[in-house]
């Protein structure tokens, strides 16, 4: 084994160890782990957005809607129809996927600004519809959603959820990476770089755009379903345009078009306000704005570019 590979292995395993040990480190402060759990859920949703925008080149300003659909579907199935929680989550993912197909259709005809506005409209209208429905609790929101349970095992503590979510993050991220390395993934990237060239090479542009939308929506739906059973409270206003833009911001800050970007962006997004503290809460919004501007202007791959630079510096 060459020294640099050895070093990389050591760094990677120590990062893995650190990730696994965090709940023990913060044993006395489970709220920290709770925030990290939220960050991981955001990271999952953001990974879908990253797939769509960073790799597919398709703008979406309505991504929060997929989370809402996944979350509400799963929660309503469990609460109103007593469906098994695992099946409910699967159903949530599937429903989000179907909506991905519906919202993906405009992307066949629209691009750039037009697509941005169309997804913004569709995304916001989902939140609006949920607000009008009775089964979703309407404007009162959905309260007392049971907490996550896998088989007979209830994940009541933050730490237990932490490990499950970490596992899910790894699985989702690997799935996205493998998708991108597959034939379909190459086609998706070809479509991003030049739709016309891709079409000329025989890529079915329309089909791949829809596939990307559906895949991205499913991932966000999964995030939303898990979110519902973690927070135990859903309100349509939390899934409007503002949250869609927040998800987008996370993916930009983390680094669009990189696999680790979403987790970096989401952790940064969730933890910065905690680090800064309640009294200076809005300073973090200022920093987020500056981070996005800085990312676009100086670090197009966001935080993950920083990571890459550190790696090169340390010759990892």
């Amino acid at each position, binding site marked *: 084994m060459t020294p640099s590979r050895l070093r990389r292995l050591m760094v990677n395993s120590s990062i893995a160890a650190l990730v696994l040990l965090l709940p023990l480190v913060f044993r006395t402060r489970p709220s920290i782990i709770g925030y990290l759990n939220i960050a991981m859920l955001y990271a999952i949703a953001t990974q879908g957005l990253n797939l769509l925008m960073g790799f597919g080149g398709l703008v979406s300003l309505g991504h929060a809607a997929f989370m809402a659909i996944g979350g509400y579907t799963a929660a309503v199935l469990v609460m109103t129809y007593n469906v098994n929680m695992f099946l409910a989550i699967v159903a949530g993912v599937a429903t989000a996927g179907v909506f991905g197909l519906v919202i993906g259709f405009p992307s066949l005809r629209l691009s750039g600004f037009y697509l941005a506005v169309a997804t913004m409209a569709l995304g916001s209208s989902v939140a609006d519809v949920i607000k009008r429905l009775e089964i979703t609790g309407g404007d009162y929101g959905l309260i007392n959603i049971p907490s996550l349970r896998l088989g007979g095992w209830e994940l009541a503590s933050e730490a237990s959820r932490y490990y499950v979510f970490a596992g899910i993050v790894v699985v989702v991220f690997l799935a996205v990476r493998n998708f991108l390395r597959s034939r379909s993934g190459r086609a998706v990237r070809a479509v991003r770089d030049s739709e016309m060239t891709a079409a000329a090479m025989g890529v079915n542009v329309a089909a791949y755009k829809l596939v990307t939308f559906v895949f991205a929506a499913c991932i966000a739906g999964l995030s939303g379903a898990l979110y519902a059973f973690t927070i135990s409270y859903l309100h349509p206003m939390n899934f409007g345009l503002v949250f869609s833009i927040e998800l987008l911001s996370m993916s930009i800050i983390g680094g669009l078009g990189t696999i680790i970007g979403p987790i970096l962006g989401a952790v940064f997004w969730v933890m910065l306000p905690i680090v800064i503290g309640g009294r200076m809460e809005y300073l973090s919004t200022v920093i987020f704005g500056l981070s996005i501007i800085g*990312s676009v202007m100086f670090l197009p791959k966001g935080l993950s570019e920083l990571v890459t630079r550190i790696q090169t510096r340390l010759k990892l």
Partner: protein
Amino acid sequence: MSVDIFLNLTIRGLTTGAVYALVGMGIVLILQTTNVMNFAQGDSGMFITYLAFFMITTAKVPYSLVLILAILAGAVIGLIVERFMMRSVRSRSHLSLIMLTLGLSLLFQGLAAFLFKTEPRLFPPLVSGDPIKIGPVVLGRQDIVVLLAAIVTFGILYLFLYRTKQGAAARSISQDEYAARVLGIPTPSIYMLVWAIGSAMAGLAALLIVPRFSLEPSFMGLIQVKAFTAIVLGGMGSVFGAAVGGLIIGVVENLVAYQFPAIKDSFMLIVIVIVLLVMPQGLFGKRSQRRF
């Protein structure tokens, strides 16, 4: 719905629509000339409105002067944004440019919330006094000011675009940026000018509409969404289209809200999607060409 109610709703809708039109025209002006969809248009207006608020309440500056200062502040913000942000990334993808303005919008919101706190504040209207009755129509004085301001702004913008050489240059850039540079048009200064005008319009629009809501960091969010709807309806490419689109949306929204309150918000969103899918060129645009 009686005729009187219909008339009242329509006229009042026009005044709301005038604000959508003001925001939308600024966005289209910048979009057409510089190819940047400015998602920070509403929030730069919001930030300027905070500055205006403290000028009025704390520094006791007269309202008319504040209005001028607010327009100037908008222009300065536009200049800064163009010179120090947009210029260096002009050649990047649409996506990067959209992201940049989203970052800017977040920055304005954060600054407003951090510096001025988030609790809603009541912003005094420009003019007070009893509503005015014109036949069966009852109109607030501020509403009349808003309508007049939108008309005047539209007039000024029209004169700028069609009667000045800078305006002609802006139109030429929107049609063929390369040719404009080849002919020796100083495109960087035109970009700065257009950003200044566009942002000044944002400040004006926000200041005019704020008395109807309350001043808080998020108050321009929904208005900006409506302005985008107006642009799409008007065909993205035309300042005139954005103005008419804004007015139509203001009126229809008001009528729908009265008759079918349940679908008030979703209605406009559905309109956007249908317009985009069925006639993406909007009411006044031509497909696949950038123009005013």
